[in-house]
């Protein structure tokens, strides 16, 4: 047989054989459509993000160069800033309380005191539009729209910032690089820099970020300029950002986002592939006789295998193309889903590379999963035409099957690795997915064994028949358990995690736990603030002194030397950050010594001060007990030695520190204070905040109620994105369910027809069908819920380190709805058989 003709003939045969099975084959492949759609949509999003970042990077930064740090510029730095030609703007930003006199509303906001024409690219989008330019020379402010809405303020109202009352000139809608989420966490208020001094907020100890923005003439060579200023900027511990670095940073963070989302999409695809594998398994089983006939007529085993491989590849291609088309449509909606996380308007266009990737991925993965059954074709004996009993011996365990399993695992691992770029993460993901599948398959096997072992023989015929369908030949137990179970597990885990996050925060609002933090309290303000607290019957639960300092030397090595030392793997920020340190003679409840010895008091003034470091921080920077650290405490050098490492529980409202000093060293250093108190309700909180803002405008307050609102808002927004992506998996689960039930319809036709012929009524067959799907749906949902409870518990115990108290009402709803949908779909599919005569069904469907 000529090879050319051979291949053409194989394609013809694949096509001929598929004609009578179009609807079934499309049903198989519909399982992967949503997974491919999700991936294509996300790949397109990634492509569009990169395109948009490239074109909008300048307006993300708003300038050609930004220099920033949280210390005032040294004379050397000031000289550098002055020496740079081009246009300049200066911004000092810090957190502070603001006060709306109209309704006495107070809230912590990010104050941005601006001087100059920043932004040079893009604009401060305001309403009215002119306000973004005009406020700079007047006693006016721009207020973020979330604040304006929250406090029902209008343009023209007053706003008190520190000791100055400004006129609200406009509503700030968008600033360069700002995302919706950032505005929720720290809404901005722009004030002219010239009024900052009058506000009296820029005091010693205030945590201010200094930013300088530059716009240069187009002819300026930016890489050259950066090279020139880099040594000074780094020596001064300043950070710089250029349009190019902004592009890289933004690109990197969105690559992480799209990688995460593509993994969620991949789960949907994997779930779909389980559907494909199961459907093809049954399909090939039904084709055994046709394959045997072909073998009788002289078709080689490899040719028979190829006929069906070509058929499945073709169908996989159609499914992938459908998925890619759907993905191209869905990607138009993704910018709306992600709008709160994007710092720019995202324009979408069709990405052919994304579509190509999706289609190739779809064809490969559908073939891989189909191969599990297709390899059995090689073993089909022509003798099957004479003896149907040979069927059982033909599909035997085959070493090639293990190779296919290995290929699937390798593919999943490879795909995950490409997304995560970390082999440990890829192994964890592949292992996790495999475990979930195996657990569900294990549960299905256990279930079938249990039903057989403890079969309720005393039940009525209909019940027994429905239950027996769970383990009889051609049952759908395994595939339905996996698809329904995974879907249910997905939904319930999401619910649990959402609850865990909120419960963890809410825990802190109970009882007398601190729920309000007052910070930036100057030493002279300490006594009057305590008096104010007492006057309003509020307790001082903790009073913590804070001293700011910088690290000058580590084991005798300075930051400049450390940077030069290429063998040094320590984090550069070790030297550039400002340390906020406290001192006390004992540990608090959130701390536990894990190494070394805690020394509560420095007794020998000549010896290095014995300090304690947070163990994670020490580990990240390879600092050990016994290392010496020299701190610059506002001009005074202080040599310390690491006496102990502490494990710190950062959860809850507590003041926790990376570096802890003993008593007897820092008492006389310039310091400010943090108070923790408990406010019983919102009214008391509002009243107290108003008093503090009016009497001590520099003191900032964080109300846990506010944090809760903000976190709730954020978790709702993140939850929406996750639910949107998880929706693909859940919908895929439903499609796999529908496909599995429809395939099982073919399995059950003969039986239903036989029962009808023997005189079973339509109701009786419906009851048998309903019972089978009820058992399956219930048990699969129960398994899914159980796995989710296990997963939720593990997350609570090991990741969130909290108690696991799940809310069972929403889970109960899921548990009831899933079997109901399963039964509904099962019945709808059986209806077609029951409404026709047995002979008609046999002639058309078998």
């Amino acid at each position: 047989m000529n090879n050319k003709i051979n291949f053409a003939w194989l394609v013809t045969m694949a096509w001929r054989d598929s004609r009578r099975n179009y609807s079934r084959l499309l049903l198989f492949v519909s399982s992967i459509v949503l997974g491919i759609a999700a991936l294509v949509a996300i790949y397109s999003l990634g492509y569009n993000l990169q395109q948009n970042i490239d074109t909008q990077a300048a307006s993300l930064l708003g300038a050609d160069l930004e220099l920033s740090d949280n210390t005032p510029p040294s004379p050397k730095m000031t000289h550098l800033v002055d020496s740079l030609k081009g246009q300049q703007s200066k911004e000092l930003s810090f957190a502070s309380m603001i006060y709306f006199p109209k309704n006495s509303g107070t809230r912590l906001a990010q104050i941005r005191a601006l001087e100059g024409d920043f932004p040079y690219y893009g604009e401060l989008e305001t309403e009215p539009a002119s306000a973004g330019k005009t406020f700079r020379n007047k006693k006016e402010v721009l207020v973020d729209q979330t604040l304006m809405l929250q406090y029902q303020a209008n343009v023209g109202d007053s706003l008190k910032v520190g000791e100055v009352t400004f006129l609200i000139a406009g509503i700030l809608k968008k600033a360069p690089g700002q995302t919706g989420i950032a505005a929720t966490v720290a809404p901005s208020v722009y004030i002219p820099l010239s009024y900052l001094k009058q506000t009296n907020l820029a005091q010693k100890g205030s945590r201010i970020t200094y930013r300088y923005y530059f716009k240069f003439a187009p002819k300026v060579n930016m890489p050259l300029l950066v090279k020139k200023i880099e040594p000074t900027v780094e020596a001064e511990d300043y950070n710089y950002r250029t349009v190019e670095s902004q592009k890289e940073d933004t690109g990197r963070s969105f690559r992480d986002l799209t990688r995460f989302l593509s993994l969620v999409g991949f789960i949907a695809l994997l779930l779909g592939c389980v559907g494909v594998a199961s459907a093809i398994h049954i399909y090939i089983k039904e084709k055994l006789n046709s394959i045997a006939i072909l073998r009788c007529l002289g078709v080689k085993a490899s040719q028979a295998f190829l006929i069906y491989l070509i058929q499945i590849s073709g169908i996989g291609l159609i499914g992938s193309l459908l998925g890619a088309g759907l993905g191209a449509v869905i990607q138009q909606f993704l910018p709306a889903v992600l709008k709160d996380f994007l710092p720019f308007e995202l324009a979408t266009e069709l990405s052919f590379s994304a579509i190509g990737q999706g289609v190739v991925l779809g064809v490969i993965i559908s073939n891989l999963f189909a191969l599990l059954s297709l390899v059995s074709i090689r073993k089909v004996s022509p003798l099957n035409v004479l003896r149907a009993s040979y069927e059982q011996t033909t599909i035997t365990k085959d070493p090639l099957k293990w190779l296919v399993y290995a290929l699937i695992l390798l593919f999943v691992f490879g795909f995950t690795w490409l997304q995560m770029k970390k082999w440990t993460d890829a192994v964890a993901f592949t292992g996790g997915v495999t475990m979930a599948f195996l657990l569900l398959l294990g549960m299905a096997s256990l279930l079938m064994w249990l039903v057989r072992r403890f079969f309720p023989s005393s039940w009525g015929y209909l019940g027994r028949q429905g239950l027996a369908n769970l383990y009889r030949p051609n049952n759908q137990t395994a595939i339905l358990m996996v698809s329904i179970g995974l879907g249910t597990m997905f939904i319930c885990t999401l619910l649990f995690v959402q609850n865990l996050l909120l419960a963890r925060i809410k825990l802190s609002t109970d009882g007398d736990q601190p729920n309000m933090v007052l910070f930036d309290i100057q030493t002279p303000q300490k006594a009057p603030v305590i008096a104010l607290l007492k006057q309003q019957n509020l307790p001082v639960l903790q009073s913590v002194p804070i001293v700011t300092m910088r690290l000058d030397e580590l084991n005798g090595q300075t930051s400049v030397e450390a940077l030069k030392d290429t063998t040094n793997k320590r984090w550069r920020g070790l030297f550039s950050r400002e340390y906020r340190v406290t001192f006390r003679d004992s540990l608090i409840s959130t701390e536990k010594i894990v190494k070394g010895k805690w020394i509560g008091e420095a007794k020998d003034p000549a010896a290095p001060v014995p300090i304690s470091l947070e163990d994670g921080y020490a580990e990240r920077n390879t600092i050990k007990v016994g290392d010496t650290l020299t701190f610059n405490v506002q001009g005074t050098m202080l040599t310390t030695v690491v006496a102990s490492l502490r494990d710190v529980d950062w959860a809850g409202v507590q003041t926790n520190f990376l570096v802890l000093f003993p008593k007897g060293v820092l008492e006389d250093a310039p310091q400010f204070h943090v108070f923790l108190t408990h406010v019983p309700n919102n009214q008391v909180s509002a009243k107290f905040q108003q008093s503090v803002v009016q009497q001590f405008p520099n003191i900032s307050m964080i109300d846990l109620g506010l944090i809760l609102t903000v976190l709730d808002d954020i978790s709702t927004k993140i939850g929406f994105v996750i639910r949107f992506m998880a929706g693909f998996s859940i919908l895929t689960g439903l499609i796999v369910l529908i496909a599995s039930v429809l395939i099982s319809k073919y399995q059950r036709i003969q039986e239903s027809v036989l029962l009808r012929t023997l005189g079973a009524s339509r109701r009786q067959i419906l009851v048998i069908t309903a019972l089978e799907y009820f058992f399956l749906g219930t048990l699969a949902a129960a398994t899914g819920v159980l796995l989710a409870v296990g997963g939720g518990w593990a997350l609570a115990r090991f990741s969130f380190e909290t108690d696991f108290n799940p809310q069972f009402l929403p889970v109960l709803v899921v548990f009831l709805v899933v079997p109901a949908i399963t039964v509904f779909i099962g019945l709808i599919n059986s209806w077609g058989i029951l409404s026709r005569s047995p002979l008609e069904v046999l002639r058309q469907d078998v």
Partner: protein
Amino acid sequence: MANILHLHQVGKVYRSGNRDLKVLDDVNFSVEAGSTLSIVGPSGSGKTTLLGLCAGLDRASSGQVELNGIGLNQLNEDELASVRNRYIGFIFQNFQLMPTLTALENVMVPLELRGEKNVRSRALDLLDKVGLADRGHHYPTQLSGGEQQRVSLARAFSNQPQILFADEPTGNLDAETGVKVEKLLFDLNKESGTTLILVTHNLELAAKTQRIIRIKGGKILSDTLTS
């Protein structure tokens, strides 16, 4: 005339659980090219197994099966498939047509497999010979049992086989249709000069062949020529 089929001390053993099941034991016979032969015997006597071995669908546990001078035991699965396509035609009790192919396509398959030309017109001629020229586009489920067996006959003769194996060719048909199919089978066989080996319970049908081998318990009881 030369022998087209030769069996020498052929045995077949199946493994059933822990024990061996001897289905055929020391079977010896030869078949002349162009002759007709029936294998008869009760259910479970081993006649279908014997047919499977003769047609290269299965392998003997012991002994030699030679078809057209080729030792089938020495061939691998793909070589056996090639032998079937080149030399053998099949007719089965339950017709064994591909349900997803039309009647015409079912007849075309063996010819296409050989890479021959004018496949369509030759298949149509064969369908015409079995009286189904106008039913070529119908699928097997749209045909009656007799029609399906006639398509099966057309397919069996399509590759001009040197030997035809028929397993209870009329077993699933009513008497009247069975007679028609029998006549068609013998007529086509005579016309093409093909060797015909029939496996059947039906002694009346067996009597129409030149030779009858009776088999029981896996052994040949008798090997007689018919008058």
